């Protein structure tokens, strides 16, 4: 009866959308925020690039494309191999130290790729500690007597990026392994499959969507990496965008190249989704228990521990130890800069603000896609994720004119109406930075929210709706409590990404606003990495806490339900 009364009170037109409207409109507004810089880039690109393309096609694209493809393929293989292997190690086996590996395997997330590149060049240089030690052991006196492969190569970049970025695959795949029905594993074993057989015949095929999601995040990071690639001398397509823009003073040509790359990435993502279109088995997670771990003793246990420690040492341990030593020497030598605390606060502040907004908007687009059954909403979610496929500086350049345009419009109106100049409200403040982070990393939060929501049965929505709850109320009372871990994990990934972000931060920050990353870059740009060691260490330390939090959030699914029970 109350329903009828409510219906009579409300105008018919307002009800036509059924609550979903608000979400679609909000998702559309979010997509617009993301598309604005891309449109601006399109406008720049449309100014015409002169003869840029004949030069690009003849001299740049063949090698840069080859390098990029090699780099992506290599990093892809490394992250999938290491990430999946590590996830299987800690979910299928139990051995002393496994609980530590569980979260420690995420640690490389805290280290920006450019810092790893700097650190490894120090470590692996002929006059660095490792080669010096090898020479001492071999009784050699001069670096010329022993030539090891140089880390400054495509191969070196693949290894470094692969071992820093594998946690994206580890994170998504481990969660999936933990959720796999014990029944499936038991069934496979009664059918005569060994543990290894289960890995290749059950676990990996089932985890393919999760592996694909993790690997695509890692590959986007690789594609848009500038610092490490340039430092390691790998001429990628992204670097070609830079040289077209800076050295050839051809911003339109650079924008065209960036947009073509974006189109290729979108195409690849679509192909990948199409190839996986029938793999919809990831979401069925009702009534599952993690498969029992096989207990290892003695030598196998030691081997497992060693195997698990290896990626941590390469991706985190070695560079972090190096940074600690460098930072300590630096502090001894030059004292601790008093600005480091302010910079750390700035870093955490903007990252936190951007994280909150990105997670909120990510939830909006993912939820709109859900209640719209993926028609318009699904498209909006894809559009909102585009920012991740563009290098940070390119986004920043794209953001300059919409931001400043809006600022100057507001200023103009304010001058006309009140005679007060508002100046640059957005582009003159950290708001521009936060906007850029949100655009850049909305794919991470939106994807996280989408993945979380996909595990919540649609009948729960229907149930709540028929019990009189609105779409918005359902989100608050049903979905949010259920997807909190997934959302929290996404939030932390976004936070760590924001904290490490460099190119957009450099271009868009307001006056007198330094973050740890810009401080580090300022030192690195004039070749004084050692002065940046303290800032680099601070980035790693600030990133460490959320990464450990993330490890706790991404823990086993079943015990969490058990906690709810208590």
């Amino acid at each position: 009866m109350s329903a009828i009364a409510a219906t009579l009170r409300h105008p018919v037109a307002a009800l036509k959308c059924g609550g979903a409207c608000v979400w679609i409109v909000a998702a559309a507004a979010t997509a617009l925020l993301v598309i604005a810089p891309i449109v601006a880039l399109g406008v720049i690109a449309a100014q015409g690039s002169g003869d840029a393309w004949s030069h690009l096609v003849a001299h740049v694209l063949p090698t840069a494309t080859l390098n990029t493809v090699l780099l992506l393929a290599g990093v892809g293989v490394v992250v999938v191999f290491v990430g999946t292997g590590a996830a299987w190690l800690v979910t299928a086996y139990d051995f002393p130290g496994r609980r530590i590996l569980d979260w420690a395997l995420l640690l490389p997330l805290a280290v920006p790729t450019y810092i790893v590149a700097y650190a490894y060049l120090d470590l692996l240089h002929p006059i660095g500690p490792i080669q010096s030690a090898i020479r001492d052991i071999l009784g050699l006196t001069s670096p010329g007597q022993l030539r090891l492969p140089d880390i400054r190569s495509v191969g070196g970049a693949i290894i470094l990026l692969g071992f820093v970025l594998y946690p994206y695959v580890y994170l998504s795949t481990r969660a999936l392994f933990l959720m796999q029905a014990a029944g499936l594993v038991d069934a496979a074993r009664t059918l005569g499959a060994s543990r290894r057989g289960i890995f290749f015949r059950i676990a990996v095929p089932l985890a393919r969507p999760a592996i694909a999601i993790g690997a695509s995040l890692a590959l986007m990071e690789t594609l848009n990496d500038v610092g490490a690639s340039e430092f390691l001398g790998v001429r990628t397509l992204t670097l070609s965008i830079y040289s077209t823009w800076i050295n050839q003073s051809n911003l339109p040509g650079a924008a065209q190249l960036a947009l073509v790359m974006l189109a290729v990435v979108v195409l690849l993502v679509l192909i990948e989704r199409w190839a996986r279109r029938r793999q919809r088995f990831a979401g069925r997670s009702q009534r599952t228990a993690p498969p029992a771990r096989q207990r290892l003793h003695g030598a196998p246990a030691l081997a497992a521990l060693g195997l698990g420690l290896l990626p941590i040492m390469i991706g985190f341990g070695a560079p972090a130890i190096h940074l600690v030593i460098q930072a300590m020497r630096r502090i001894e030598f030059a004292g601790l800069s008093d600005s480091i605390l302010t910079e750390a606060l700035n870093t955490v502040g903007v990252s936190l603000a951007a994280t909150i907004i990105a997670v909120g908007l990510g939830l909006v687009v993912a939820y709109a896609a859900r209640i719209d059954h993926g028609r318009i909403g699904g498209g909006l979610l894809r559009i909102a994720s585009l920012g991740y496929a563009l290098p940070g500086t390119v986004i920043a350049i794209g953001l300059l004119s919409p931001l400043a345009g809006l600022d100057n419009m507001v200023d103009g109106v304010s001058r006309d109406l009140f005679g007060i100049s508002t100046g640059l409200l957005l582009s003159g403040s950290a708001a521009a930075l936060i906007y850029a982070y949100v655009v850049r990393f909305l794919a991470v939060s939106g994807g996280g929210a989408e993945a979380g929501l996909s595990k919540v049965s649609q009948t729960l929505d229907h149930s709540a709706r028929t019990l009189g709850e609105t779409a918005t109320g359902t989100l608050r009372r049903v979905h949010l409590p259920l997807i909190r871990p997934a959302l929290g994990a996404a939030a932390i990934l976004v936070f760590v990404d924001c904290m490490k972000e460099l190119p957009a931060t450099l271009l868009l920050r307001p006056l007198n606003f330094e973050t740890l990353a810009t401080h580090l870059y300022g030192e690195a740009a004039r070749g004084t990495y050692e002065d940046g060691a303290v800032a680099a260490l601070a980035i790693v330390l600030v990133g460490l806490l959320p990464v450990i939090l993330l490890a706790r959030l991404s823990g086993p699914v079943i015990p969490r339900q058990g906690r709810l029970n208590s």
Partner: protein
Amino acid sequence: MASAGQIIALRRPAAEMDQVLRPEQSDVVRLASVKPKPQPSAPPSLLVEDLSLSFGSIPAVDKVSLAIPAGDIVALVGHSGSGKSTLLRLIAGLERPDSGRVVINGTEVSGPNAFVPPERRGIGMMFQDYALFPHLSVLKNVLFGLRRVPAGEARERARQALDRVGLGGREDAFPHALSGGEQQRVALARAMVPGPDLLLMDEPFSNLDRRTRDIIRDETTAVLRESGTTTVVVTHDPDDAMRIADRIVMMQGGRFAQSGTAEELYQHPASLPVARFFCELNEIETACRNRMIATPFGDIPAPGTAEGTPVTVCVRPGDIQLFEPSVGDRTGRIISSQCLGETVLIHLAIDGLDRPLRVVAPADGAPATGRTVGFEVETGKLLVFPAG
């Protein structure tokens, strides 16, 4: 599945054959008109008019109309893909129709002029998987729909509802700790406690084992009768439908194949699919010759049926009578016999039929395997349809 003991024989006069061969294609089913105590002044609790919804080019629900008077329980039956669940979701407002109207208690909730979202329709709904909120206790699940009721009263009502379904004392348990039957009862209590004008149930018993299911079904029916809630139950199980519903609507290909009481659908199926749905049949393919249809049980007159028309003659396993020792020309050999408790299922090989007939006979004095026996069916119990 209906067991043989409950089968009620239907005598169908041969004169009705003509009608059977050209079944009426009526889509509008006025259940109210056949209700024993029609109340013309009160509007139906649920009115569905010309409702259609297509997924792509495939019509899921195709111009169906339905009226349900207050307090009635109607079962929507059919095979998977028949459109019954989609119709339920259209009524709930979980889907928007392409055309047509849904009116609940006189208010248009779906139609050209309105779309009321599910939360404002005053309905309750139960789901096949129960859709209990995993993060909420039993009590909080039941309280979910009572937000506008003062807290104390809401608690009281929720406790009463849980007591009514026999779950008093399990308020603080979490869904995953409950058995399937308990989960179903929580779902029922949760759907009922806000006092919906219309209760929609989507396969509410299909996740239960047979024994639990009989108990829960009877309990659920009792709760619904007691509260007088107008209910639409979607099920693929004819047994559920016949036991719980006042009326049964059978759907096929997005349309209504037939509707009526359980007895009407069982005894007078309008088409072969309807007949098949409610009973496992022996089917014999034959044709009309000289205005007669020849069957192993004798010839049936078929006036008005064109020469050579292929037909399917059906006979229920329980309608075949066996005689021992055999008398007359109709004899067959028993090739197997399985005990079903009070009855036996016999496979009877007959000359002229490729497959043996299935016969359900009382266990007491049933003939043994290998024996030759006589058989007989009253021609009035034969069902004849255009070849399916």
